[in-house]
């Protein structure tokens, strides 16, 4: 994954723009991106995931220039290549855990093809992440926050997408569950050979990552005259 000379400017707030001259991630590593809120972390993730496109520069994921794809193809690309975990409210609360885990496969036929038996894969992931098998049929909204994050991790990991993007996945968890969750996530990411890009404001997490990048080091935030 690489970003070259990227500039994104918000439509409404023209006075603020995010500039990333160069940012690269090597394959199968883990990177912690540190930044305060408002430093453009979420925007960076949206750029990587292709829900927004930069006005300038290129964003490549797995060698593909995201901006060159059509909107529909970008959605498909995201489904195929990126597993996402958010801070919280990751799951469709009314659906079962199993349906939640299988949801990305619905939009990613290639990723789906890598999983011979989606149900078995979901079950195995749940076990690996320390979720009892009976949670699969439970309604996602009934689980505790910690369990929900693990389900979200299982959903991001299913079908082994090359890139895992986690946006402050542990900030809603207490310290003990944080540590367990992270070690499980690391183990699974390594097992599936996925690159892990995690965004956080918590520098203490850095020790477990291959690389720690500060948001301020890769961006040039500047005031632009309209």
């Amino acid at each position, binding site marked *: 994954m690489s970003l070259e000379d990227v500039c994104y400017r918000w439509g409404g707030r023209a006075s603020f723009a995010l500039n990333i001259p160069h940012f690269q991630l090597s394959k199968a590593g883990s990177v912690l991106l540190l930044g305060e809120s408002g430093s453009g972390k*979420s925007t960076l*993730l*949206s750029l990587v*995931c292709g*829900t*927004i496109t930069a006005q300038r520069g290129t964003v490549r994921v797995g060698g593909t220039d995201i901006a060159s794809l059509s*909107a*529909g193809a970008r*959605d*498909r*690309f*995201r*489904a*195929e290549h990126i597993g*996402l975990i*958010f801070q919280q*409210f*990751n*799951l*469709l*609360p*009314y*659906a*079962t855990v199993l*349906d939640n885990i*299988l*949801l*990305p496969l*619905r*939009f*990613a036929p290639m990723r789906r093809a890598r999983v011979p038996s989606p149900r078995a894969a979901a079950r195995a992931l749940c076990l690996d992440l320390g979720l009892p098998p009976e949670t699969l049929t439970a309604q996602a*909204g009934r689980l505790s926050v910690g369990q929900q994050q693990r389900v979200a991790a299982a*959903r991001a990991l299913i079908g082994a997408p090359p890139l895992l993007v986690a946006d402050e996945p542990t900030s809603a968890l207490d310290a003990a569950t944080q540590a367990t969750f992270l070690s499980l996530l690391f183990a699974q990411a390594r097992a599936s050979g996925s690159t892990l890009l995690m965004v956080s404001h918590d520098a203490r997490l850095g020790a477990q990552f291959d690389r720690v990048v500060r948001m301020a080091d890769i961006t040039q935030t500047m005031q632009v005259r309209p």
Partner: protein
Amino acid sequence: MILRLALASLRARLLTVGMTILAIALSVALFSGVEKVRTGAKASFADTISGTDLIMGARSGSVQLLLYSVFRIGNATNNLTWESYQDIAARPETDWIVPISLGDSHRQFRVMGTTTEFFDRYKFRAGRSLILAEGAVMDDVFDTVLGADVAATLGYAIGDPIVVAHGLASFVDHDNQPFRVSGILEKTGTPVDRTVIVSLRAIEAIHVDWQNGAAIPGQSTSAQTIRQMALEPQAVTAALIGVKSRLQVFGLQRAINDYPHEPLLAILPGVALQELWQIVGIAETALIAVSGMVVVTALIGMMATIFSSLNERRREMAIFRAMGARPRVILSLLIIEAAVMAAIGALAGLGMLYLGLLIAQPAIDASFGLWLPIEPPSLRELQVVLGVVAAGAIVSVGPALRAYRMSLADGMMVRI
């Protein structure tokens, strides 16, 4: 899977979704109920008289003849003479003929003079015959058979004496010749219910001491003497005719219409009923339009609930988007949800209709004489269901497009 998620999402919002479905169900039940009553009324109306091939009367309009001879509404402009009646009765095409003589009343009910053959020949609702609830058909000149409504309204029982008034809104009673109730008919839902039936001879009998519509002063013939009189009618008001072969209906009709000695009119009851229904039928269109509006209102209510749910569902849409769902998926998700709600509502509405019919059918038949058949859903009802589903999907396009734009703008990040 999308359908399963849509259903789960609906289940999670059981209360609002339930209320929306209830509104649609009620509107569909109302709409199909009105439809049911309308077709039932139309069928009942068309079934007022059956088995009769022709109705003959003095020349007037066909609807008018139908109104006074069958529905006892309005008056005959003229009678037809007994000679003409017998000429027609003697024609080879005529299988049977039943005379009807109108013009007198008992309280608010019309009195009809006829022969006992009327009870065999008059058919309604696809060939059903008149049935006596109590008593027997008239035997004596002064016997009378009452329609169900007459007996119920006036509280008559077998053997009660009744007095027939001359004319229709008259204070002059034929009180020197009181009648006796010999039989009471079962409810039919036809104008027969509101008719006092006497023999044709009785109509002559009560007019024995009358001339030119007024009682001859001082003259009074005893009932005993009257019974011995011939009492040949001078004229009758109308006649119901059956032909030997259906092929002869038009021939006989033409023969009657061209009858040289008197201007006569013969009508086909079915055709005249159709003509009459076209006049009555304007009201049914209004009724349909109103109940159609109720369905539209319910669907717009559904659109409003979907609109108002969009904001609280932004997170849900963002999750879909993050998982790689195209905005189109969100569009279709909302439309599927709306269609499912409309379908459940429409089917529940039909269910309510049938339940209501099961409960109320006998009561409606008894009190209005309106028979609403319980049949498997007709093509028309299926069309209503499909129409409601389609309309539900169409009205949901509005909120779905809004969701589409919202999810496009939000992407996978929602700031609430």
